[in-house]
């Protein structure tokens, strides 16, 4: 039964309005293709990069500062040139995008989980619980997200012993970006939940005596997820940028696992001296990635908005 329903689900999706609007928009298709390629390359990066830059043994200092291949002095094995340590820029970008995406996905998922749960509880239970959660959200909204992330990062650095920094830094960044972004989800879900909880199906579920938690998760949640997906996609772009900002400021992911932001920061030191490829290429990559994800998010918002159909 379950197996048989898979083609059915695909058919339903292909026939749906959402897929129709996807096929109608060339920009969206391009954005999806770009995102797809980047994600696949990032996931497979450790196996497909031409030069594993994590292996310090493979670095040759005398190859440092090689320009891109089409510029005089470039070497064929370094398509986009090398950085100050002799690392292939093309490879570092692929490995860096992997870190950026990993942090972005995890942080968004984390923020989504907290936000959706608190929103559901807030909207469904109401009363004092609702007031407390929403006031906390208001307070949270009055701080810029990046400030909270910086604060958490700073405190974590103070608490965690120095030799454990590199191992834990990634989690700290994910946590700090996630915790600074949950409010948008909580507010949206709470609004939808307030509408849904007075509908007949919820009342019916309540009458047959289901546990409130079961009602929230099994019955209300699937009906409030549409907007959450939109915020999630846009939030992913935001989280990738937040991570790049933190890493650019030098408080993000550890130097041993450079993300796009780290690469831009390192390359930035050589911008004045004309070795532009170290910072421009990771920068371009970041722009493309964030733009593609944002376009997807915009399309999803329009496609799921009944008023625009």
């Amino acid at each position, binding site marked *: 039964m379950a197996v048989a329903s898979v083609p059915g689900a695909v058919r339903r999706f292909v026939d749906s309005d959402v897929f129709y609007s996807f096929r109608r928009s060339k920009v969206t298709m391009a954005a999806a293709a770009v995102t797809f390629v980047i994600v696949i390359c990032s996931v497979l990066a450790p196996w497909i990069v031409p030069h594993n830059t994590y292996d*310090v*043994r*493979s*670095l*040759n*200092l*005398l190859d*440092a*500062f090689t320009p891109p291949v089409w510029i005089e002095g470039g070497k064929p094995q370094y398509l986009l040139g090398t950085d*100050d*340590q*002799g690392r292939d820029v093309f490879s570092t970008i692929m490995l860096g995008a992997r870190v950026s995406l990993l942090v972005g996905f995890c942080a968004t998922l984390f923020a989504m989980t907290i936000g959706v749960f608190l929103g559901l509880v807030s909207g469904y239970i109401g009363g004092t619980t609702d007031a407390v959660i929403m006031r906390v959200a208001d307070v949270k909204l009055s701080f810029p997200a990046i400030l909270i992330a910086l604060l958490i990062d700073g405190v974590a650095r103070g608490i965690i012993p*120095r*030799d454990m920094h590199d191992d834990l830094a990634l989690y700290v960044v994910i946590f700090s970006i996630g915790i600074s972004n949950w409010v948008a989800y909580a507010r949206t879900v709470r609004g939808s939940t307030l509408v849904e909880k007075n509908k007949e199906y919820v009342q019916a579920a309540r009458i047959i005596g289901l546990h409130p938690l079961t009602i929230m998760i099994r019955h209300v949640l699937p009906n409030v997820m549409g907007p959450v997906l939109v915020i999630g996609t846009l939030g992913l772009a935001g989280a990738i940028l937040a991570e790049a900002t933190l890493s650019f400021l030098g408080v993000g992911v550890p*130097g041993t696992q450079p993300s796009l932001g780290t690469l831009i920061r390192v390359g*930035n*030191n*050589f*911008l*004045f*001296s*004309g*070795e532009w490829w170290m910072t421009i290429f990771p920068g371009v990559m970041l722009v493309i990635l964030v733009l593609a994800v944002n376009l997807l998010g915009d399309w999803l918002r329009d496609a799921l908005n009944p008023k625009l159909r």
Partner: protein
Amino acid sequence: MRKIMTATAVAVALAAYGMAEAKTFRFSSSGDINGLDPHVNNEAPTNAMKNNLYETLIFRDYQLKLLPALATEWRQVDPTTWRFTLRQGVKFHDGTPFTADDVIFSVKRNQHEQGGMRTATLTIKEVRKVDDKTIDMVTEGPNPILDQDLSALFIMSKPWSEKNNTATPVRGIVGNESYANTHVNGTGPFKLLDRVPDTRTVLVPNENWWNKQPQHNLTRVEFRPIANAATRVAALLSGEVDMMYPVPLQDIPRLERTAGVKVLQGPELRVVFLGMDQWRDELLDMPGSGKNPFKDKRVREAFYKAIDAEAIKRVVMRNVSIPTGEMVGRGATGYSKELESRYPFDPDGAKKLLADAGYPGGFTVTLDCPNDRYVNDEATCQAIVPMLARVGVTVKLNAQTKSKHFDKIGTRSGNNTSFYMLGWGTYDAYDMLYNIVMTVNATPGAGSNNSGRYSNAKVDELTKLIRVETDQEKRNKLIYDAMKIHKEDFGHIPLHQPPLAWATRDTVASVPQSPNDYVMLRYVKMK
């Protein structure tokens, strides 16, 4: 209405006039100074700042010449006694007069075991007050370079120190809130107006300075650290600062081509080297093993030979450093051309040495490195990581800001390091031998920055002889012998003499570049 307008015009004109007269010199470096206490934190940029606020008996100028300062005259009465005539009419910033008692007090304070500048007064046994304007210093054995030593002894006010409960120094950098470390009362050409650590240090000229014809024309000085090299360059280009150092080496050609910016370059009297823990029975990174590979000379030699100093020069230092195998640089007394040549780069030999020592698969060690102290310090360490990886040694790099770095490798934390980078600038090889090479506390205060605690009794003996040898030729021979033993022991791994590179805007008329990398505000002229 017209009256108001006239008044406004006059006010604007006055303000413009005032601005034309104000000569504010804003400068920046990669890191903040380590503190203001004149008798702790022996570090060049910190000493340079103290040198603007405090004075010594004998002043070392930007050409490294010794000039009279708080002492107007000095001579050696006998091999162990020096007589100093003190300058009269000098006042500290708080108005109290400078007296012979202040000198006696400052020598004692500087000799305190928490002090970081003890080299300056190490040999002084006693300071005698002959009369109000004359003192005698008696040394323990003859000290032929006492005048040079004293150019690093800053004179504090005895009543001020006692009143503020800061009569003894407190060591340390991070969070060192002792009164003398956060306040200033010197006799120098500048006074402290405001200081926020890691943010800004603001000075104003001391209008009561004894030298009534100062060579500077400044009315205010602002120093602020900008750690990021590119940001520092941008700050100079945008006119936010008038002078900054060090210039990132990769930016020198571009800045030289930029109108309105001047780059000053010269060799620095400093050697940057790596040190290794040679005293713990167990390496910090190998808990439970009961082994410390660095105790084996072959391992130290392997590290030396695995590092390609020429590649570091060509790539990291952009061909402007001087690779060296000696602990003192060109220009210092006791420098030897022969010792300067490095043992050849030999990774295969290094692998073999490691295998012979019982580490065919290498081992793991943390390299402590500053990231805002020496020219391209972190980049140098980063370049060393793969070089050692290729002979099998896994190096974990711990690069951090210099205050934390120096606290970690220094005596405050009990030399909490296994492998570290340090640089030392000196005018005389004795200072290097005494602070870096000698066994810790072989004589009081010796090995103050010997963080790996290299120890060789023969070197200690020779260093003691150097201290009292007055014949320059014999002395140079002793220095040569000591340095040669140390080199053959691989006590430290010297890397290079970094270049000095400063950059100024055309708002600055002149700022002399001293080979010790001191920014001497008393010579700075603005246009």
